[in-house]
């Protein structure tokens, strides 16, 4: 028979935002480069793209940079959760606590969106300056960003849970997130891609997020039906991605 008396006095659920918000905030407060570099990086890349491509693509590329910056949070989550688990052994103290794996995943993701927020806001301001953004478009952009944030953070943390050494973090993270960044047409229209690549791109949630955002902003031709289909496919591909991440995510070692 289980002992009930101590159970009643112990907290059953953890506070995610309070704990991980402080962890994420303190990181950028104490390491200013961690706040400044994520802010600058998208603009370095946009400058490069602006030089080599058709100027008419610029608004599309700004929108793409927002999605790419969000996607990149996944690689930070991968790196962080690997450090916490492998080097600091801190994941153990969270596993052996009421702070369950969903809270932990959300916490790490939340602590890593904090340094990305300035860049997202700045890009949003630039987007509004270079193209007209309706309130519906803002809703779509925010929804896509939140979706990509949750999914790619989950992918990063799930992959990280299978790494055995710190030295695997860079190559594995680089492999996954650079490939994901290249395959999705974030910085150019889908139509510019070769056919085989186009098929591959259509497996990725970020592709549908990009299509939705580009279509809603009027940067690429889209109908209400095509946007609805893109939204539906974003939901489906995200669900598949999350299921895959959940299956991969090892909270307790075997």
């Amino acid at each position, binding site marked *: 028979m289980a002992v009930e008396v101590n159970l009643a006095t112990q907290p059953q659920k953890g506070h995610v935002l309070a704990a991980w918000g402080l962890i994420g905030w303190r990181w950028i407060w104490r390491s200013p480069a961690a706040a400044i570099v994520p802010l600058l990086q998208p603009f*370095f890349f946009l400058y490069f793209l602006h*030089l080599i491509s058709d100027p008419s693509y610029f608004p599309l590329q700004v929108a793409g940079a927002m999605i790419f910056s969000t996607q990149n949070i996944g690689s930070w989550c991968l790196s962080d959760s690997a450090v916490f688990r492998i080097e600091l052994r801190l994941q153990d103290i969270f596993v052996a606590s009421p702070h369950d794996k969903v809270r932990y995943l959300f916490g790490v993701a939340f602590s890593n969106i904090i340094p990305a927020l300035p860049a997202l806001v700045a890009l949003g301001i630039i987007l509004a300056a270079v193209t007209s953004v309706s309130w519906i478009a803002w809703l779509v952009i925010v929804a896509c960003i939140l979706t990509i944030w949750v999914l790619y953070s989950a992918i990063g943390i799930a992959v990280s849970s299978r790494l055995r050494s710190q030295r*695997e973090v860079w*190559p594995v993270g680089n492999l996954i997130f650079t490939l994901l960044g290249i395959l999705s047409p974030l910085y150019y229209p889908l139509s510019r891609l070769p056919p085989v690549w186009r098929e591959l791109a259509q497996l990725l949630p970020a592709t549908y997020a990009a299509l939705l955002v580009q279509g809603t902003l009027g940067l690429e031709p889209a109908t209400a039906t095509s946007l609805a289909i893109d939204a539906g496919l974003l939901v489906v591909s995200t669900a598949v991605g999350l299921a895959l991440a959940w299956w991969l995510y090892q909270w307790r070692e075997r």
Partner: protein
Amino acid sequence: MAFGLRWNGTGVFLATEIRVQFHEWLAIVTGTLTPGALLIFVAVLAPNLIAVTLIGSLVYSMFLIGQRVLNEAAYIRIDHKLNELYHASPLSPEAYFVGIAGGMLVAYMPPSLFVLAILEILHPLSFVAWLVLAACLLAVWAVSSTIGYVVSTLFKDMKTIWPYSALLTNLFGIVPPVFYPIRFVPIEWRSLVLILPTSGAAVLVNSAAGLETISGTEAILAAAALAVESVAMFVFGIYWARRMARER
């Protein structure tokens, strides 16, 4: 210490480092991804710039080797504290630095050879262009390895290093004309980008390969800056390695 003695053990340590790196073949393969990604963007958005971008990939890959030196040296020092094992030994600090830098160069050469092969197919280089390419890549390696090693000694944990590493790769690789021709740079900024080792190297090789035209003055400026930077930085790297061998 006599000059010969200073470099005693360099070969063995370099071989050790190469062996360690080859165990991590995935890192070597994925090291090509970032320059590869930029190649792809150019192929999609500006295919006429492919040859310039291929040369840029080579230069950038060489710069990234320096970032691998940063990572490796920091990892050895912060996580393993193995640097203490080597510093408290007959292996000199400069041999340690050169061993890590040289080991990375050898280990990460194969992907660059692959890019070289593609370049040679798409835009064969003359003998002079090959010489210029080799000299420039070596110079970029010397500069970036030193930057990487010095930065690796400045921090106490790996997480703090990451933003600086990302900043360096952007400032030296993405922003300046490494992956695109110098003609895209406004005239008032051209001297500055010619002085930067990565863009200077890329411009020199592009010019030697006949992919872009620069004036004699610009060529001399880029070549002189690269030569001075590579020698000065490498010497500084040796000085810094000796200084850092004993914490203050």
